[in-house]
């Protein structure tokens, strides 16, 4: 979900930029390290970025100055971790502003925090918690991507509520109001995104499992076990 250009007051635009910048700087540091050891990861990063661009361009209206869409960031968080995802997302969000007039430049910091930092962090945490357990690989991917998507929306609702608190009840009321509106459109979308990305993983495991093994997303044993189950 992208907040539109001009929607947030300048103080909030500045604050979210200040929050996003240290994460981006650390992400660039991690990116340099990954590309230093494995330069061939660059095409996958490009594909992941392109994927996030396409998925998060499929926008549906919601009634809070923003829009609902799949985020696709769970895929990047699972493949490269949340820090590099923040950098990929920042680039994708910039492209979306300039290619599709989707999102904005002053609100880029706020959009990076919600879609590039908080959402992927939650997705990555779920993935880390479940990857070495007996939980099915597809369920792990489903939960990581769906929750990554949902937490993106929770964060955007919080950003909107902080900028525009209600007169009575303040930020809390405003947050509940924004969340209530988003939940209607976003919960089904998050579930669909989780199912779609789990099926994408199924497809990759069937046709080209070496991608997942090389990136150490899942262990070879787990992938082989999943393939033999199918």
């Amino acid at each position, binding site marked *: 979900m992208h907040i539109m250009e001009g929607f947030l007051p300048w103080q909030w635009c500045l604050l979210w930029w200040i929050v996003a910048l240290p994460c981006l700087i650390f992400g660039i540091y991690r990116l340099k390290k990954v590309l230093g050891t494995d330069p061939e990861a660059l095409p996958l990063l490009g*594909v992941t970025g392109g994927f996030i661009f396409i998925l998060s361009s499929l926008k549906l209206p919601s009634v809070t*100055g923003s829009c609902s869409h799949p985020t696709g960031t769970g895929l990047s968080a699972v493949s490269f971790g949340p820090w590099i995802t923040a950098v990929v997302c920042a680039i994708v969000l910039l*492209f979306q502003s*300039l290619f599709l007039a989707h999102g904005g430049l002053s609100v880029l910091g706020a959009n990076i925090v919600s879609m590039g930092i908080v959402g992927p962090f939650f997705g990555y945490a779920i993935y880390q918690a479940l990857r070495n357990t007996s939980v099915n690989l597809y369920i792990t991917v489903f939960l990581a991507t769906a929750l990554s998507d949902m937490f993106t929306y929770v964060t955007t609702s919080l950003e909107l509520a902080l900028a525009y608190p*209600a007169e009575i009840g303040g930020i*809390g009321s405003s947050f509940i109001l924004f969340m209530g509106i988003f939940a209607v459109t976003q919960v089904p979308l998050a579930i669909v995104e989780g199912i779609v*990305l789990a*099926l994408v993983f*199924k497809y990759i495991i069937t046709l080209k499992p070496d991608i997942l093994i090389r990136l150490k997303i899942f262990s070879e044993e787990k992938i082989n076990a999943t393939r033999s189950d199918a």
Partner: protein
Amino acid sequence: MFEEFLEDIAQKNGLRGVNTYLKLATGLGAIILCLLSTSYFSPLFIALILTGSILVLARVDAKTYAGLFIVPFWFALFSVAGIILVSGGQEVFWRWDPFSWLSLSITRESINFGFLVFCRVMGGMSAMCFIALTTPMTDIFIVLRQCRIPEVVIDLAMIIYRTIFIIVDQVKQIYNAQVMRLGYSTFLESIHSFASMCGAVFIASWDAGEDLIRAMNARCYDGKFALLGETRPVEYLPLFAVMVFLSLSSLVVILSKDMTII
């Protein structure tokens, strides 16, 4: 949605030859002025001037430009309605308290504030569209490199830029093939078709990306993309026009600071 990117329009717009820094100063300056505005008038003034420049100077098709505003217009309209209902004020026209923690009201102050936010969105969108429709991404890459953004970020941005076009081409082809085979006939079929399309596109794009890296390695790629582009000179007339626009807009922001709609 992907029939025509703004990038395609930017590549052949009437302001293509103007110095990139001047165009960015115009767009970013306008965004900052819209954000600093405390009255509805200045963002509308900025939107009007920039829309005129986009249509007349950049020669962008009016229908295409208007199409960019349909979605933001409705989003802004609904969101402003929400802000008007919750932000409250002194002079109350209508009030309803559905819960103890939520009060909905329409006041003079909330209408003025809501209209200001609406105009700021319209002004900000026109400023962003000005950059998007007049400045191709390749020019922005050159500016990013001159601003000493880390090479690794620019290289990644360029790879993503290239991949987007590969993916869009493949999505179009696969989607059409699936539709012809009744791929999206039911909801479940749609999810399955969409997922298999994403998987196929992912693998095909990965292969295309690896081919690109192999081709570049064969041409002595050392981890840094060559970026060819000329820095266009700053001409006096565009410089003068940008200075007049930003000065006039700043003056309007200051003079109209207390202006309200009701």
